[in-house]
């Protein structure tokens, strides 16, 4: 019973991070119809920037702000300078460009920050709670992780639903031509979409890093699991991304806890194949005919 509880709690904590990452992927897909395979590398890079500051003596929160704002800049820069030229072209080109960015960013991080494993601080205690004499795997830090993801999600929902800017972004994603005719600066909306997605991705990178060892490839697994979560929920649906993330987090945690951690990647593959074969549009997609 204790093991089940612990595995479930661990799964929820990890699921929150996968949800954030999947959300970033969905944001970019909705605006530019591209899957950003470099999302993890971008998050890793901004986390390393934060780590540099923290090692120089700043507090975790300063690092957090720096990571998020550098994510904003990085996302906007990537869209403007690189992605703009392959939007709307053959999908193969966009995929290869984001993969190239992934490889280049990871190598750049290794050159600038070194490839050794470094510890990344967690802002809250890493000791699990003890409830009635039973140790449970919920730490104050995991509560912070779940909370941070919730806050960001609610902020994004508020942005898209209740603000003018959000409306424009949704319009630009829905139909570029008509939006242009209506005076929406489509190019800028796309850039903003990438920037916001990068902020969410940076947050995901930071949350995973807290209380763990970081190295340039530490986000590699998250890219795959986040993608599976996004596909599970439906690449068009932000809500689906969140649900997908939590589901994947729980499922993979059960596999890791009961079957062995070597099978986690295989389980992710199996889930992905199952989703793509049975319901390729994902659990929450609204459009009827989806060509995957």
């Amino acid at each position, binding site marked *: 019973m204790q093991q089940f509880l*612990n595995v479930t709690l661990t799964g929820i904590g990890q699921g929150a991070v996968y949800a954030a990452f999947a959300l970033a992927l969905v944001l970019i897909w909705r605006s530019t119809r591209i899957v950003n395979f470099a999302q993890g590398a971008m998050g890793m890079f901004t986390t390393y920037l934060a780590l540099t500051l923290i090692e120089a003596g700043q507090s975790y929160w300063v690092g957090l702000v720096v990571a998020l704002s550098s994510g904003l800049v990085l996302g906007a820069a990537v869209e403007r300078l690189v992605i703009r030229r392959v939007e709307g072209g053959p999908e193969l080109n966009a995929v290869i460009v984001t993969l190239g960015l992934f490889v280049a960013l990871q190598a750049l991080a290794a050159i600038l920050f070194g490839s050794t494993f470094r510890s990344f601080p967690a802002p809250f205690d890493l000791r699990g709670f003890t409830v009635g004499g039973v140790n449970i*795997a919920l730490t104050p830090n995991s509560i912070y992780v779940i909370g941070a993801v919730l806050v960001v999600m609610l902020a994004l929902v508020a942005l898209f639903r209740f603000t003018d800017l959000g409306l424009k972004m949704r319009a630009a994603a829905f139909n570029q031509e008509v939006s242009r005719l209506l005076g929406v600066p489509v190019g800028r909306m796309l850039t903003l979409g990438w920037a916001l997605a990068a902020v969410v991705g940076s947050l995901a990178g930071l949350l995973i890093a807290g209380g763990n060892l970081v190295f340039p490839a530490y986000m590699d697994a998250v890219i795959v699991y986040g993608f599976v979560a996004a596909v599970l929920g439906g690449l068009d649906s932000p809500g689906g991304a969140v649900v997908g993330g939590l589901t994947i987090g729980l499922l993979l945690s059960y596999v890791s806890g009961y079957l062995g951690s070597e099978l986690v990647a295989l389980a992710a593959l199996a889930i992905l194949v199952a989703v793509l074969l049975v319901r390729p549009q994902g659990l929450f997609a609204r459009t009827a005919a989806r060509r995957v």
Partner: protein
Amino acid sequence: MKARALCAAVAAVLLLSSCGAGGRPQGGGGGDGEAEVGITPTSVKVGAHFPLTGVAAPGYSEIPTGAKAYFDFVNAHGGVHGRQIEYIFRDDAYNPTQTSQVVNELVLQDQVFAIVGGLGTPTHSAVLDHLNGEGVPDLFVSSGSLLWDQPQENPMTFGWQPDYEVEAKIIGQYVAQNFPDARVGLFLQDDDLGRDAEIGARRYLEDQIVAAERYTPGNTDVAPQIAALQAAGADLVIGFNVPSYTALSQLQSLRLNYTPQWIYSNIGSDPALVGSLLARFSEGAVTDAGLLEGVLTTEYLPGVDTPESPWTQLFQRVWDEHGGEGELTNYRIYGMAEAYTFVQALQAAGPNPTREGIVEAVERVGSTFTGPWVAPFRYSADRHAGISGVRVSRITGGGTEFLTPVLVTDNGDAPITELAEEPAPPPADGVPDVQPAS
């Protein structure tokens, strides 16, 4: 059409007949007149592979810097038989495929005389057959696996440090004597490192072991293993793992509020290194080496926490004169001690060393080498095993407290005996003085 075919046929016949090397000399090349690979009248070139990046890099990446400093020290004192030692080390990221490529470069491109101190059980086992097949001396592997002690199949390979079975036996006996009622768990690397350790531990603790968990180097999530140890009720855990996993296992135990008595193998227990890995984790809630307080481990070399030892003072001098960035650490001392042994072996190989010659020299006189290690080597014509014993110690207040005298044993069911003698002091100039063996 026919003319062209005829021309082609004539051309082919002419080409083939212009070949023909005639008779072939019996016996391969490389006769006695040729120089030995990697040796010139003024230099000896040796190589090694180490994890300079990757999960095993914390700590282990410092070993070659120590070895290089010691070789530079010896070179400054005139080298060995008038030859300067050139030391090349390359990164394999603790990744056996990369080890294979890197050793290929060292043997084929750099043309080293010998490989000295290649690190890692999974990594070095990938190149074992190749090095022995090519006849390259594979001296003093930086690992405690039993694979290096197979003189029949791998005559060029020699171990150096106390192997995991010997260490686990000594730890096992200590636990059986001092914690007879403990429920023992094992935390092992999932390869020969862990397997050899488990054999040694089970020899004394078979009835007490309640769980044995394995991790894969490269997968930093050890939560399932720690949770399983906790669920099995283990109140004493013996860990044979690389230093990063010492830090990770401590972190996970913290998360689960799991506080068994920890015993770590000497390969993963350096308090300064583990402390630096854990230092930043939870500001205020966790202080650096505090997590390792009370952890038991084993020792066989003097460390930076015993500055009064004459060997530590020698190594400090070597590091100050020839070292690079950073401080002297226990891993650098390990590298220097290995380099010291190689210098002894090279001296024993005589003024005209050959690859077979250095192997024979180590077999003949290696067991008489004295140095900073607490117990003698087991080298002979039938054994290529390294240091024969360790002492059990406790990490406390950042330093170590010895709990037992030096205990010596061998593989299998050899008994554990105490060693009365102290290690010999270092030579005055810091360079060993071994006579040629033949």
